[in-house]
């Protein structure tokens, strides 16, 4: 393969992963960075979006495309997809509609998981909350493995190929879609932070008692932020499944909780621009490690993946000790400057 093709492939793959992590980190930053809810269980929402998209997508495609078949969409997944995918390939508009539908399903699944985790989240102190949410995150993997009709048990399922109509440009198109969604979400989160709503969230984070004394309903604000953040995580999970074309119940705490935390720490907790910088820096670093992994095969007496764990752990600890504010520090808003149209009493 020519070098240029290799580089393009590398960049496309990197951008797709970056897009997914940008969405998740934005959702996490809204919770931990802006509102101060230590959500150690974002895996719960990501896996929720991914598994429910995986479970429903083939079933829905069969119903919506009007395919007459007695095959089971989950246990006879491959055979069913052989009926579904050609139709999707010949009808791009249908595929786009399905994409939007699946994305909404993923988002709603994530929000549902957020609703479940918000029950403890509005009541508990931060340490108890972190422990509980960390534990919550693992539940869906157990269900995914145990309950076969969801995503076919341990082996997982394939999902309809929404991007198949682009032919050999499939991955470029998929990456482009992921990036567009991610940037839209990122911009929207940046907008929310600047609104009075966003400033209320920061006030709750900085001093709950003062916020309450000003008549803010803390529980309501915290619940809506968890719902919003989890919705984003669910959408990211859904997008990742549609991009990779399959889902297995192996979503790990390391990939979908620890790494997003590392990204927002690296970028600067509480800063929306930090989320972008952190995700991009981190995904590039990680991709380079994996890319050069093969150079080390045979030299080191162990799998280099573990070196990755070791390095990432050390990097996080160093950031926490020496630069807890991250690369991009959160900008302190000057209330006088920010008194825009939205703040004026009506």
């Amino acid at each position: 393969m020519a070098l240029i093709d290799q580089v393009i492939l590398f960049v496309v793959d990197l951008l797709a992963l970056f897009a997914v992590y940008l969405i998740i980190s934005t959702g996490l930053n809204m919770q931990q960075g802006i509102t101060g809810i230590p959500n150690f269980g974002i895996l719960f929402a990501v896996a929720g979006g991914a598994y429910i998209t995986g479970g429903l997508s083939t079933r829905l495609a069969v119903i919506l495309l009007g395919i007459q078949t007695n095959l089971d969409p989950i246990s006879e997944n491959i055979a069913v997809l052989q009926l579904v995918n050609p139709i999707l390939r010949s009808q791009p508009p249908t595929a786009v509609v399905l994409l939007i539908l699946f994305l909404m399903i993923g988002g709603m699944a994530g929000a549902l998981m957020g609703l479940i985790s918000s029950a403890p989240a509005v009541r508990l102190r931060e340490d108890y909350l972190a422990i509980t949410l960390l534990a919550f995150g693992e539940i869906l993997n157990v269900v995914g493995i145990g309950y076969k009709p969801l995503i076919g048990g341990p082996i997982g399922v394939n999902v309809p190929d929404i991007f198949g109509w682009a032919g050999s440009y499939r991955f470029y198109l998929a990456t482009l879609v992921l990036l567009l969604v991610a940037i839209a979400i990122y911009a929207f989160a940046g907008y929310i932070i600047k609104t009075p709503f966003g400033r209320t969230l920061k006030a709750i984070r900085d001093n709950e008692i003062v916020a309450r004394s000003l008549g803010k309903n803390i529980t309501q604000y915290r619940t809506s932020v968890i719902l919003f953040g989890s919705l984003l995580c669910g959408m990211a999970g859904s997008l990742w499944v549609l991009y990779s074309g399959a889902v297995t119940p192996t979503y790990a705490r390391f990939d979908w909780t620890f790494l997003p935390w590392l990204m927002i720490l690296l970028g600067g907790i509480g800063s929306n621009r930090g989320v972008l910088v952190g995700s991009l820096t981190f995904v590039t670093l990680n991709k380079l490690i994996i890319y050069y992994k093969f150079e080390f095969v045979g030299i080191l007496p162990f799998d280099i993946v573990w070196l990755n764990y070791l390095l990432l752990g050390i990097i996080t600890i160093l950031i926490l000790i020496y630069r807890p504010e991250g690369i991009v520090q959160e900008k302190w808003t000057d209330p006088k400057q920010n008194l825009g149209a939205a703040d004026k009493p009506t």
Partner: protein
Amino acid sequence: MELVTLSTIFGWLTYSAFLSLMAVGITLLFRTTKVANFAHASFVTVGAYVTYTLTVTLSPNPYVGVPVAFVLVGVLALLQFYAILEPMRKRNSSTVMLMIATLSFDIMMLGVVNIHADYLTSTFAVPARNILLSESDFKFMGQPGILFVALGTLALCSAALYMLLNFTTLGIALRASMENSSLSEAIGINVSKMLAISWFIAGGLAGIAGSLIPMWTMVNPNTGTLLIASMFCASIVGGLEEIYGAILGGFLLGLVDVVGTSILASHVAPWVTLYEPVIPLLVLSGTVILAPRGLAGVHLRRGRSWHL
């Protein structure tokens, strides 16, 4: 058909003894350093691999690893305390940041354990995953030795901890720094040193528990990670404010987990066993929502709770 078999009961006792040893450490650290230590997961795994490495390299008796694991994992916990938590505490890092630091240390150690496992395989040509050493365990009264060793170790360790905390000057200083660290500092107790000692003890206990696990069940580099929710559950059910509550919590969680699942699986539906890992999570969330202070916080009489 009887409700529970004897082997289920023995399984419960063994599992609970391990859980209690781990949970005591979590509670101790929570009391002294005010941090939920996620790295307890890797402490346990390291303990298990100490045992296995020693059986591969030195001696076929798996119990040789126990004291080694106690010291080694204790030192590891000290390292975590001095290299990570102490600098962060000096910078007044928030509780959440401290917790992420322990999680990062856990991830780091996960890498180390896996590298060690790969190294064992490549150097000694032995399997280093899915390890089970119950073959080299002894039998006593027809039961696997680990049952007696686990319960005995728990009894010994809790007795030693009780003696230390109640009958030595060091223990009194330790308890004082748990109750009120600034006041203890004012009367000349080196609180930082006390914290370090509590980290050594907690790490050591987790190491002992880990070093015994290979004789009871299959061990992988992610063994600790799979157990961490149960450890926290036992600790919280017992009440994070009370050290010995963790033992009670361990046995209660074990009862629900092992005996409960076994009864449901044999009398209701066999597929229940598939969802066994969810049980500690449900117990945990139920406890934190209904009785956040755990069993030790349940008031027996008005105005009185269980105390040391």
